[in-house]
């Protein structure tokens, strides 16, 4: 599965303003809402579902990266966005580092395989230090978009 299959390019944010866990999740969900990928009425419910997943263990996977994700019946297909925070946000990561790079995913309950595939793709691509570093350094949504395309074309880890 490629980034282009599930990342909503219009929702990418290179300038996240939030400075705590809950508000950064809210900001990312709002970006999906602005891009028309989720229903405004479901916003709070989606945020609650993501926070519920965080209770199983933080999705801050270390190295300044977090991949908050959840299943939610309001979406028809897997949607996701990418956000970069210049100053970093405390996300209760196990390594204690602040998170600068976020991948947020919302998947429909009836497409179980996609969810796992997308997570696998993200964690495989992030294994490439260069990719990870360039994403964190991105200043515009276009930069991020381009990096994701390059990753899709196997320019980074394969």
């Amino acid at each position, binding site marked *: 599965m490629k980034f282009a299959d599930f990342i909503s390019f219009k929702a990418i944010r290179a300038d996240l303003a939030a400075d705590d866990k809950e508000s950064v999740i809210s900001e990312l969900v709002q970006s999906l809402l602005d891009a028309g990928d989720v229903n405004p009425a479901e916003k709070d419910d989606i945020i609650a579902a993501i926070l519920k*997943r965080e209770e*199983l*263990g*933080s*999705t*801050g*996977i*270390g*190295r300044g*990266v977090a*991949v908050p994700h959840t*299943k939610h019946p309001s979406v028809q297909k897997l949607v996701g966005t990418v956000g970069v925070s210049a100053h970093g946000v405390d996300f209760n990561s*196990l*390594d204690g580092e602040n998170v600068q790079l976020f991948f947020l995913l919302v998947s429909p309950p009836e497409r*179980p*395989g996609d*969810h*796992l*595939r997308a*997570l*696998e793709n993200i*964690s*495989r691509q*992030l*294994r490439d230090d*260069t990719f990870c*570093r*360039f994403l964190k350094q991105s200043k515009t949504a276009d*930069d991020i978009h381009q*990096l994701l395309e*390059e990753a899709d*074309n*196997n*320019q*980074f880890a*394969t």
Partner: protein
Amino acid sequence: MFVIDTILLVTGILLLLGIASSKFSARLGVPVLVLFLALGMLAGSEGIGGIEFENYSLAHGIGTIALGLILFDGGLRTPYRSIRAAWKPAGILATAGVLLTSVVTGLAAAAILGLTNLQGLLLGGIVGSTDAAAVFSVLRSGGVHIRRRVADTLEVESGSNDPMAIFLTVGLIQVLSGEVPLGPALITLFLNQIVLGGVIGLVVGRLAVWVLKNIQLDAAGLYPILATAFGLFAYGFAAAIGGSGFLAVYLAGIVIGNGRPVFHRGILLFHDAAAWLGQILMFIVLGMLSFPSRLLDVAGPGLIIAAVLILVARPLSVFLTISALRFSFREMLFISWVGLKGAVPITLATFPLMQGLESASLIFDVVFFVVLVSAVIQGWTLPAVARYLKLETPAKAEPPVTLEISSLRNVEGDIVDYYVDEDSRAAGRMLKDLALPDGVVVALIVRQDQIIPPQGRSQIEIGDHLIVVLRPGVRPLVDRVFARQEREAECLPEALEFPLRGTIKAGDVERFYDIRLGENPEATLDQMIRSKLGSKGLSVGASIRYEQIVLRVRGLTPTGSIEYVGMMILPLPKEQPVGEETKSALGGPKPEAS
């Protein structure tokens, strides 16, 4: 003895020596082109061969043909993916980068050698371009593994920067000989080179793909020749109407190579050979053309100019032109270091000689010396520099392919011979248990001198050859099936696991990710892993592999219960359900029962 008999004898001997020297290349780490050049110098009038050769127009002719073939071959092997990823940085480097390098080097050369500024710039233009033959040979066969975007950038740059260098050289020669005034006429010359060369390359390439797919030749051997013919045609046509022949032949090669023509593999093999022949002949001829004694005369200023070029001009132009395009500092240092010079400058340096320009022979000697320094120092140290800058990526495990056969007619299919060695994932498994994707047929198993008709129950043994028919698209998946085993689960960094608390229930994880762990859903991860590993096996780092995920113990509390578990998601190809694998392995025509 006719003259041609002697020429053939000498050519044969030189080719044999050239091929023999390529065997040393790998052992010594010296780029082959240096050895070929050295061989040419040894064979030349001042070496032990004593061959008198000072025919600049013949050398220019051989250089042009060889370079055309090398660029055509390089184009054939460049997938669109590389172009898409690298056209921006490569395009800027190939134009503005070359110009900047040339100007800086040229002005320095003028000052050092006491030439006029225009003569200096001519020298700068001649050595301004990165050599495709050298870069291809170092990056593709030199064992340097770097990030693909960097490699693509360097390859596409070196393949497409010759028009700029040729333009600078031809333009300045025309200005120096008074044919064209400095000014707008030069711009027209430049645009003609790029636009005409580009358009003709693309059009001829398209035409060639169509012809190759539809002509239905009876003799397979004619297909590669047909491709070559189109390459030569693209060069000649473009050059005849004032475009860049080198750009045209490179682009035509790219279009043909990506068009999957009939007998693709044959075409590639033929041009690989042609490019090698071109490299050996070209460098040997250029070596013979030089006079080592005259090189020594220019050694002092030559070294300084080479130093300016390598240490100042190239890095300056790289950093100024592509620093906005997301390369890391180390990568830009590396790209600067791969400003390898090769045959193009030497071939270009024969232009002023043929025109009888003032100081032409000084320019030729200095250019030759600079190329030699660049090829030896940069070419030799490239792998070490890549390592030093920590840019090397591990080489991918090569699938053990020994033979690729392609259908003569235009069929979307390849026949591939996989060799099963002891590390192969396929070794010791039954055919039906291989995770072969749909549309793949194992046609034959060859064991020593026996042929075994494949069946689902056939066991694959070490040393077997499997002849597999497949669609080109699924090739990477099949390669993985036969590739050497990696120990992925153990060597992954823990940072890419999703941490889960030990106290959560197995059922929660199953529900959340729609996976089956086959355990009591009410058990906590701690209990589940503890019962699997036993109290002895329970330690940080111990892991259990499930169908789609691996769970690894990440941390224990002081009382010994599992605090955190890392969940890693396994990549796709291994996860296909067994039922489907069985079907697809035998999905094609049934092998005859024996």
